[in-house]
């Protein structure tokens, strides 16, 4: 189901994916305007109730701008947009979106962003590491200068996940480099169907 930016309702959905895609043209700052739309207020309310939320690329930027995840995404170290098939390590299975991955699993998922470099102050980074909230890390070279090679992080309760790479482009070998992204969506469905006990 698609939710409309100008409506402050989630229409009863059980999980939300905030997708990528240059909301408002990335004008002002990537994700800054979208984070202030009515639908995000509904998302923020739902997060308090523990609804699983996945932010991909611009969605990750929006979740950071909305204060649902710490830190920020800034322009890539190389200054260019980077589109590539990116190797990642799954650092944590203890989120609503990664239960199906073995910890330490290596996956390949497309990365495509200009403002994909994750930054946060050192206390935040230390806390993320200590609480094992770094969920994905870049492998085979840091593509954008992200702190600690961070590609994705989760909220403290593991229900909200933000990541720069695009798992939805890794679901069919015909149109992507792998099917490695499917398990994100399957993991959330497991949680919603109650087939896996909630981890938190």
């Amino acid at each position: 189901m698609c939710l409309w930016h100008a409506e402050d309702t989630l229409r009863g959905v059980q999980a939300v994916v905030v997708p990528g895609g240059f909301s408002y043209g990335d004008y002002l700052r990537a994700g800054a305007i979208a984070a202030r739309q009515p639908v995000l207020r509904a998302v923020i309310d739902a997060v308090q109730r523990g609804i699983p939320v996945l932010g991909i690329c611009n969605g990750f930027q929006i979740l950071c701008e909305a204060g649902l995840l710490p830190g920020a995404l800034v322009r890539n170290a190389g200054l260019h947009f980077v589109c590539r098939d990116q190797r990642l390590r799954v650092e944590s299975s203890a989120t609503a979106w990664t239960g199906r991955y073995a910890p330490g699993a290596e996956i390949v998922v497309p990365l495509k962003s200009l403002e994909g470099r994750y930054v946060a102050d050192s206390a935040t980074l230390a806390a993320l590491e200590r609480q094992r909230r770094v969920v994905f890390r870049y492998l085979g070279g840091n593509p954008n200068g992200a702190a600690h090679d961070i590609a994705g992080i989760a909220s403290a309760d593991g229900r909200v996940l933000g990541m720069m790479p695009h798992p939805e482009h890794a679901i069919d070998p015909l149109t992507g480099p792998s099917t490695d992204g499917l398990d994100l969506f399957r993991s959330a469905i497991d949680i919603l169907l109650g087939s896996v006990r909630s981890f938190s």
Partner: protein
Amino acid sequence: MSTPEHLPPYQELGLADDEYAQILRILGRAPSAAELAMYAVMWSEHCSYKSSKVHLRYFGQTTTEAMRQRLLAGIGENAGVIEVGEGWAVTFKIESHNHPSAVEPYQGAATGVGGIVRDIMAMGARPIALADSLRVGPADAADTARVLPAVVAGIGGYGNCLGVPTIGGELVFDPSYAGNPLVNALCVGALRVAQLQAAHASGTGNQVVLFGARTGRDGIGGVSVLASESFSTEAARTKLPSVQVGDPFTGKMLIECCAELFEAGLVLGIQDLGGAGLCCATSELASAGEGGMRVDLDAVPLRAPGMTPAEILCSESQERMCAVVRPGDVDAFMKICAKWELPATVIGAVTGEGRLVVTWHGGKVVDLPPRTLAHEAPVYHRPVRRPPTQDALQASTPDVLARPGTPHALRATLLRMVASPGLCSRAWVTDQYDRYVRGATVLAPPSDAGMVRIDETTQRGVAVATDGNARYCALDPYLGTQLALAEAYRNVAVTGATPLAVTDCLNFGAPTDPGVMWQFAQAVRGLAEGCAALGIPVTGGNVSFYNQTGNTPILPTPVIGVLGVIDDVRRRIPTGLGAAGDALWLLGETRDEFGGSEWAHEVHGHLGGRPPAVDLAREWAIGAVLAAASADGLVSGAHDLSEGGLAQALVEACLGSGLGASVRLPGQADPFVTLFSESSARVLLGVPPTGVPALAQLCTEHGVPVSRLGEVHTAPVLEIAGVVPLTLAELRAAWERTLPSLFDTPGHAGPPRPGW
């Protein structure tokens, strides 16, 4: 020298004395300022095709009924449309944005993408893929470092934000583009046949709605005036403000808004606002319809105060469309525009008067027959003369150039060629474009052609490739253009798709130069006759003249786009070698052909002789073999041979597949010729053991010669008999380092390249 202040206004606007006299005859009076501006932009070379028209007619004359069978809209429409089966149609077109990109590379390239995307939308289609053909000066020239990174960033900045994948294109370096880069943007759109739109205004009383961005002073006379004058440094400086500025987010809203308007059936006629803006859109809509049109400029939403009627009419502000809507549908139309937060205003109505009447501040500022603007511009028969230097150019053959002879020398040549700016990896460019968005991309660079799925249920898809080789065209514009057509055709065919249609972007110098016009006329004849031989029509395109610095024109550069269809994208042939244990086959014949070759250019700085021979019957036969092989799963990988010859194709195929190969060069041939000749109509194939007998039979049936070159293996080495072996690691390093080392911003090294 007289300064512009001393010229009569019509000359300042670029109109010739006899053109002005013609305007006086049409109107029976002196034109108003607004009318004069409208005639000036609409009769500019860019909008009117006044120098090329007499030659372009040849496309129509050479297009047979059989070639028209799938054609739903052709030359003269915003873009050509072809039927691809199961109720689907595809529209595609390539267009230049050369001069704006020279002046302001980022915005010039960005708005080039925006412009071609709106052409595709105007046919009722959703844009589904982009490709960009770029030509710039020498790789190590200072101005190339200014132009290329900004052009690439502009294309990415607009296309990525728009959510349309970029799945193809080219990058060529040559000194002839040093002061005049070429930015040619291609867009493909998909639509249901029933949703095909027309650019005409009919039905007295129907409303004319302008929607999208507001109208400002940016881009006044942008393309229209810029593209019709040669460059001098001073002119470039004074025209700085006239390049349009793109707003990709509004462009994205416009795509979604139009899709919804078409779906709801609210549009009777539609035209995008590109070159010459509202002036062009209203006059073309009115001219193609049966009546006339009344437009009230006071209703146009403006973003700058104090704009004159001429400025409002000729503004090239981006992201605007103009639609003809039934009066009863206007409310529904406005509601959809409001949903997408796009300003929309009724600015006029269709009339039965046969006149285009424009009012402003209560008075009439324009009153003229619309056909005289849009369809009855002056037509010129420019002098055509084969340049006297052409014979000497062709007589200077590459036969005299020193060739490598030893296994070590061949190895060194191969490594040098692989790393040359002309042949090295384009990943530095293509990794700045989103090739994945929409989730339907099946093939993208470095594949020979891009391919996208258009229907998830049936798996139907389309493939597209662009090609051009200006050095071949300099040696022989007729054959050079056919070689570009042949290569684009082959690039589509090697994916397993069946080529169906052609679009062309014809980039040339000044039409007032008889030698340039000879090149142009030859190129058009070559393309038209080549298309007839292959049985696929030219469906539309663009002519860009005045590509020159001072009096020196660019090399003649026709860029050819070919579009093909594939019934089931799961049957596409991947670019590369296939799998270890597969046999390596070479289809076609190799001759000693080095005229205009990459080797002659890179190693000897030589351009002379004749281009490779053209054999379109063979190209067609290879296409037929590959389509059948793809449908039956006989081939595991394929790669077209073009610039750099077999050596380059082997390297790219090995690196793309992450596999090595052992290659025995056929017969008694000189290994240098076999490896580096650029003979056309050749394809490298990976053939699994199970495919060998059936493929051999297919090739025999179609009269396609086969050389069995060797095998694919897992060891990361390219072994070629007679050449000292090369590891994939050293080949990859040579191939991939060149562009990053030239263009990455100092202190901001790009990302490390991924391993395979």
